């Protein structure tokens, strides 16, 4: 259980690769099921169409993520003069991480929270709610900043864009095909002598794939959160700061007002906690679990 930040980083990275590979496999399965059920004629245009739509939708928002998220969350970019102490803290983490200085933004909100976005480290933006700056001390805030800068370092905007594209393509594809089924599309399947069992399995795959894709997407998001916690410790070498910050967040029951599902995954603490259907669909690991992992790192003593 007790793992240092290096092994925690390694484990979370491996699990992300595994989950992304599972996503790829799922896409392949859906395409295969479509091929079995509808035949090559229909599939050959529906699959590229679905992938195309998902790509356009997600990659536009990925490329402009810094500006888009600013609008969606109502964050306001600030300069050094507006909050020199916050900038001092961010500069400390910037030095520890070797990353370029990000843009900094403030969200007027009575819930303590923070997020990072941007397509690459040169276009990174980290934002804090007004409340988080009030309730946290220097060490806690440093832990939060390190967590957000870890998302930047680990390119999590890119990872979540890849996950969103695949999940989106699968959802669109499944939607198309099930509609076509009701409207009598894909008649060409009658021409081939398909095994009826294979047809049923294909149908089941088409219907269940979107849920599976959503589960995988949430699982990837959870892994990236754990990874960001571990990377944050590699920057500050102070698991206690982030641990106390998470405890403060856990103790606070207010949630960020903008309850948009679209940007839920980017906050350090999920704003959707109260309504999460189950752990499997959650974008964040349970906060108690994250606190425990950090506590285990603390027990290892000062780390080089």
């Amino acid at each position, binding site marked *: 259980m007790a793992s240092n930040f290096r092994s925690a980083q390694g484990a979370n990275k491996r699990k992300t690769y595994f989950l992304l590979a599972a996503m790829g496999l799922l896409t392949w399965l859906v395409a295969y099921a479509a091929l079995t059920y509808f035949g090559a004629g229909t599939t050959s245009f529906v699959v590229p169409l679905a992938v195309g739509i998902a790509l356009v939708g997600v990659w536009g928002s990925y490329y402009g993520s810094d500006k888009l998220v600013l609008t969606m969350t109502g964050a306001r970019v600030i300069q050094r003069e507006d909050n*020199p102490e916050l900038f001092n*803290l961010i*500069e*400390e*983490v910037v*030095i*520890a991480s*070797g990353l370029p200085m990000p843009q900094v933004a403030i969200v007027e909100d009575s819930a303590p929270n923070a997020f990072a976005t941007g397509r690459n480290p040169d276009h990174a933006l980290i934002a804090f709610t007004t409340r988080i700056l009030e309730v946290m001390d220097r060490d806690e805030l440093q832990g939060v900043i390190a967590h957000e800068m870890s998302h930047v370092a680990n390119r999590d905007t890119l990872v979540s864009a890849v996950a969103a594209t695949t999940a989106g393509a699968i959802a669109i594809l499944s939607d198309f095909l099930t509609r076509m089924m009701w409207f009598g599309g894909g008649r060409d399947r009658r021409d081939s002598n398909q095994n009826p069992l294979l047809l049923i399995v294909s149908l089941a795959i088409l219907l269940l794939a979107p849920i599976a894709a959503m589960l995988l997407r949430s699982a990837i998001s959870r892994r990236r959160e754990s990874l960001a916690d571990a990377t944050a410790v590699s920057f500050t070498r102070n698991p206690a700061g982030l641990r106390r910050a998470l405890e403060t967040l856990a103790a606070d029951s207010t949630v960020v007002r903008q309850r948009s599902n679209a940007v839920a995954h980017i906050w350090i603490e999920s704003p959707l906690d109260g309504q999460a259907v189950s752990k499997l669909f959650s974008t964040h690991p349970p906060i108690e679990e994250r606190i425990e992992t950090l506590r285990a790192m603390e027990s290892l003593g*000062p780390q*080089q």
Partner: protein
Amino acid sequence: MEIFVVIGVIVLLAIFIVAQYNRLVRLNISVDEAFAQIEVQLKRRADLIPNLVETVKGYATHEQSTFDAVVSARAKATSATGVADVAAADGMLTQALRGLLAVAEAYPDLKASTNFLALQEELSTTENKVAFARQFYNDNVRALNEAVATIPTSFFVGLAKVSARPFYEVEDPQSREVPKVDF
């Protein structure tokens, strides 16, 4: 047909060698950059010191030996070059500063002065920045030294004219932790 196989192998081999060479050179440059960052932060700290000493002097007149220690440590720190010298001077200055801040503890008027309070934030963030710059440097040295010592990069150390670099070690054992600057 065979000629293509031979050319293919040669090309792959060339790509491999270039990649190893570039990796070593890149790691070596990162170490230089990380050391430059330490020097930038040490310079920032050195620039804060005259102001700090003046402020403390205004209230604590009988602590001449402490002031002298800080001023001489600062002079050594600003003239030091090379990793070992800079690290040694850095360690001395870190300790001298701690002494100065301990002195400040004994003067409530000083602790309450606006000038001193303004210095407090600057000083604590600078201490953190120095500590993180050291840590970042050492992380980079560790990556370089690992590459220098492990296969396959170790084969190209001579070609890339790169060698293992010294860690930045501050003598004061306490300085591993970020010093708490509570006044």
